[in-house]
């Protein structure tokens, strides 16, 4: 039980990041619990959120949750979404401000509160996974350019292309007429699937050209897109493939043997 409790505690710590958000929430909930006169608000925004938080840390909750959901261990933190954290902090802050009689002091404290949230928090737009959009699709422009080269015209049959793993997330977000021998399911390491093309294209440091060709032909890949930075122990052009184009550091090969 202690082990499960620690797992819950670690999940809470991971959720809270630097912990200031959780601290603000607990402080606001306690403040509402002790200072709010309206019994309903006291219970709903003070006591209940704290009870849910304690319930989250209670090992039996996690045991039941994991038994109910397939991916229970990964998504247990979502129980914390049931806590109206932003409402509690917002209302607690307003309640505290309403208790300040002098307007100038109240304004100053309000500005300070907002400053504390900004300084101790993490600006969402500065996240490492955020970047300036290159287009309205919000996918890298190089993917769009590569896909435009290999995508079939209207009315033509769909094509299958093997892409390096760093591109697979985006290809079909742009054009579903491009099929792939493997996609995102191979990139998520914990899912641990097997795919013949992925095995020869992505796993080895030096790609075995013959094995790659064999795998892509078995899966009927019309195109192979290879990063110029990848090492390969043969020349695909000499093995019957045609270089369609080289762009953005990737070479697009087409395989005339695959119809």
């Amino acid at each position, binding site marked *: 039980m202690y082990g499960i409790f620690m797992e819950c505690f670690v999940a809470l710590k991971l959720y*809270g*990041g630097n912990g200031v958000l959780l601290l603000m929430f607990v402080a606001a909930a306690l403040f509402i619990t002790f200072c709010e006169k309206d019994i309903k608000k006291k219970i*709903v925004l003070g006591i209940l959120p704290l009870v849910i938080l304690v319930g989250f840390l209670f090992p039996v909750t996690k045991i039941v949750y994991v038994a109910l959901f397939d991916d229970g261990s990964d998504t247990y933190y979502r129980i914390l979404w049931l806590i109206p954290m*932003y409402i509690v902090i917002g*209302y607690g802050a307003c309640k505290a401000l309403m208790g300040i009689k002098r307007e100038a002091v109240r*304004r100053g404290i309000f500005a300070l509160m907002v400053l504390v949230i900004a300084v101790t928090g993490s600006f969402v737009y*500065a996240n490492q996974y*955020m*970047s300036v959009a290159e287009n309205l699709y919000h996918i890298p422009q190089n993917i769009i350019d590569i896909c435009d080269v290999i995508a079939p015209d209207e009315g033509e049959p769909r094509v299958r292309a093997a892409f390096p793993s760093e591109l697979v997330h985006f290809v079909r*977000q742009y054009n579903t007429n491009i099929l792939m021998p493997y996609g995102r399911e191979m990139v998520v390491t914990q899912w641990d699937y097997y795919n013949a093309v992925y095995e020869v294209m992505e796993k080895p440091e030096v790609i075995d050209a013959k094995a790659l060709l064999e795998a892509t032909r078995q899966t009927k890949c019309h195109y192979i897109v290879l990063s110029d930075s990848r090492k390969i122990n043969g020349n695909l052009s000499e093995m019957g493939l045609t270089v369609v184009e080289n762009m953005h550091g990737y070479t697009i090969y087409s395989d005339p043997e695959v119809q």
Partner: protein
Amino acid sequence: MISIVGEVVKLIFWLFCAPFLIGVLFNFILPKEKKSLGVTFLLGVLIYLACFEVIAIYCMTTIMYSAFAYCVKYFLILAWILIALGIARAFYALYVKKDRSLIFNTEALGELKKQAKLETKIYWLIFFALVIFQLVMALVMASFDGDDAYYVVESLLAQQADVMNTILPYTGNSTSLDIRHALAVITMWIGFIAKVSGVHATIVSHSVIPLLFIPLVYLVYVEIGKALLKSRQDMVPVFMIIVSFLMMFGNVSHYTPATFFLMRTWQGKAMVGNLVFPLIFWIFLEMYGSVRGSNNEEPASVDKTAAKRGYLWIMLALVNMLSGMCSAMGVIFGTGLIALLTLLLLVFSRNFKVIIGAALSVVPNLVYLALYFSIWTSGM
């Protein structure tokens, strides 16, 4: 250029005008003080999405080929009927009866405007500036999330291949109905918006949907603020500024609702955490507020206030439908949350009828789960 303007007009119509007009049609269920533009729009969005959910699940589970094309066709018919009736109701109220109060209560807003101090107005301006900043950032900043390779592609497959969850998004191979995600038809609704507007579904997901859902979430928080700060409405913009700062600076980990809200706005789970759960809280705050004794100025009898809560139970049922549309997780979590909050309502009101209201409002959740398990066990 003309085609771009046309696409923008269609997007505005199907994202804002259509739900609003549907809200106008049905806002007779709202009490006078709640017939604001915001609550009417909220009600319209809930009904609009609930109608889509029913049609989408029906088409997905019964039609083998081109299911999405049928889904679009059937929903368009229903939506146009509701929109036409909404226009007719507005026309009747404004031009036949010449009584705007039949559809909107603008008195309260007018009075608030008159009473508002300069300081309050400045706070509102700051809040609106923060929302506009977030909308601009939603357009100009791109976030990477691996799950998009699934959800966004599902929407695009609906638009480009007329299928409903029967092609593997990752590779493009055919598959049986993926029940784990299939009933969460929010991806299909995004596909619908893409189809009727002619805009690529990935653009709709990443660049357009946030323009609807970010203001919608804040609208819910405004209503929460109004419910909590009944006697101090001047504090509502202060509450909203704090909430919007918590959202913008809430990326303390990958798991917070704020992170999901601004980085994965278009995904069902982001909507569950940021729209559905706050909506449930708002509805219950309204119910708690309507119970005698919450406020010294409210002497209404228990029975009267119970009757006034009817529209809230209807809205709660619609929120539950939205929850299922977003994520199966939302259905289970939402039911648990409703049970907890109903228990408190029962304690506060000492009126056993609330159990009936709560039970009826979770009927969509029970139907959803029954469908989920029946498809799961049949291996469709």
